[in-house]
């Protein structure tokens, strides 16, 4: 029973962070119809940054995280401006360019950071007694808390700001953007930057638990993609629900089944979704 609770909680913790990561992908896909294949690499970079800022610059873990995410946001803006913007209207090239970028970053990380796992120091230690039933690590609880906070902040942004309103409208129907009289260039720029920042946020939150290496990017990207497909493209609440489902399925599944194929769960879900309900749980079938 204890074990089951442990797996469930793990599933929720990981699931929420998956959701956060997926929101970054969903935002960019929804606004620009671009898939950022370098998503995982930005997650990793944020992890590296938070580790380095904490050790080299002597920043506390929280400030290191914030600075790392801010750096990724700026990088995202740069990426959009130099690489993505010229490809507007040509979906194929944006896919190719972000894929090439992910390869560049992967190889660069190998040189700059080396092949060994890196992680920032934990923010907290020890364990808490949850519901009087079992003990669970405080670091993981803290991760959960921060992730939930960031996601809540995102939904606040979505529903209370001008930018959020535009995002919601465009995610539903791309033609709407021009009708709203919005400057598409500025919206795309912000959306891309924010999407990258969300990837970075997921990275800094998860690296204390799972250290980063140069090659985990593909897995991170794919997980985010699966969650977006499961939740439905264009749906942000779908990301949250999808992330939780994936997190729970993975943790419960690998606990009771052979762990060699642990990562298969996401792919099985992907195939099932495409087969039975390709638009996802909350997705809309568009034109």
């Amino acid at each position, binding site marked *: 029973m204890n074990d089951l609770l442990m797996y469930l909680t793990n599933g929720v913790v990981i699931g929420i962070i998956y959701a956060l990561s997926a929101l970054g992908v969903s935002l960019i896909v929804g606004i620009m119809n671009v898939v950022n294949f370098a998503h995982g690499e930005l997650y990793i970079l944020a992890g590296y940054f938070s580790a380095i800022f904490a050790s080299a610059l002597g920043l506390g873990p929280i400030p290191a995280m914030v600075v790392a995410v801010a750096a990724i946001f700026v990088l995202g803006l740069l990426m959009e401006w130099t690489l993505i913007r010229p490809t507007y209207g040509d979906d194929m090239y944006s896919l190719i360019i972000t894929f090439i970028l992910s390869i560049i970053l992967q190889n660069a990380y190998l040189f700059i950071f080396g092949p060994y796992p890196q992680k920032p120091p934990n923010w907290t230690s020890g364990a808490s007694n949850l519901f009087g039933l079992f003990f669970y690590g405080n670091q993981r609880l803290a991760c959960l808390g921060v992730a939930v906070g960031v996601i809540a902040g995102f939904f606040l942004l979505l529903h209370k700001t001008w930018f959020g309103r535009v995002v919601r409208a465009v995610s539903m129907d791309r033609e709407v953007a021009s009708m709203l009289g919005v400057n598409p260039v500025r919206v795309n720029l912000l959306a891309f930057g924010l999407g990258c920042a969300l990837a970075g946020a997921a990275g800094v939150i998860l690296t204390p638990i799972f250290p980063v290496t140069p090659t985990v990017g593909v897995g991170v990207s794919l997980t985010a993609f699966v969650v977006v497909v499961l939740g439905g493209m264009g749906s942000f609440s779908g990301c949250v629900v999808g992330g939780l489902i994936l997190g729970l399925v993975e943790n419960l599944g690998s606990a009771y089944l052979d762990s060699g194929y642990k990562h298969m769960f996401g792919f099985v879900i992907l195939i099932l979704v495409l087969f039975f309900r390709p638009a996802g749980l909350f997705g*809309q079938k568009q034109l």
Partner: protein
Amino acid sequence: MSELLRVEGVSKSFGGVQALGEISFSLAEHELLGLIGPNGAGKTTLFHLIAGTLLPDAGRITFAGHDITRLKAHQTCRLGIARTFQVTRPFAKLTCLENVEVALVGAEAPVAREDRAERCAELLGLVGLKGKERLAAGQLNLIDKKRLEMARALATNPRLILLDEVLGGLNSLEMGQAMDLISLINREMGTTVIWIEHVMGAIMRLSQRVLVLDQGELIFTGTPEQVAQDRRVIEAYLGEQDA
């Protein structure tokens, strides 16, 4: 004349916005039907639903005895429905000849290779693109792109052709040519036509019957003379700053 197209209770929404609500009408073979209405009335959406680019949320569409409600565009094309697009969609990197050839290749009874060049040239000549066969379609000016769109649609040998604002952006000479072509398609080739247009004079002159849409509803059907005098139609257009 027999009934060719019947639209029954067709509706379509996008997100929370209802673009079309419970539209019903029927169309006889060889008719030339005008479809007018203020911007955003749902006219192009109706075309999308008939042609199969979009699926209706409710209702039924019957064409020549077939239920085409859930058919896709390439399937309705094979049954005999062709269309042009409000914003032209040429195959930019293909030549004009190849643009028309695509329509011949996708057809129900594909035209033999030897005959194709001749048929393409014939159609391009008909719409006024003679001499431009080898130009890349992306290089054409607006009126030529519209001509190409017509040639392509005609190449599919349609029984029904849906024309979406073909006169937009043309000068009076070009408009006259376009109207002659539409008249020819309908009267000599016998093709049934539904025609969306904002140029009132043109559509009133050529159409035998006119449908008026406003905010997704069908507010009037009648002859051009009747439509011009209907109170609701006039009110619907009063909010419009359109010529």
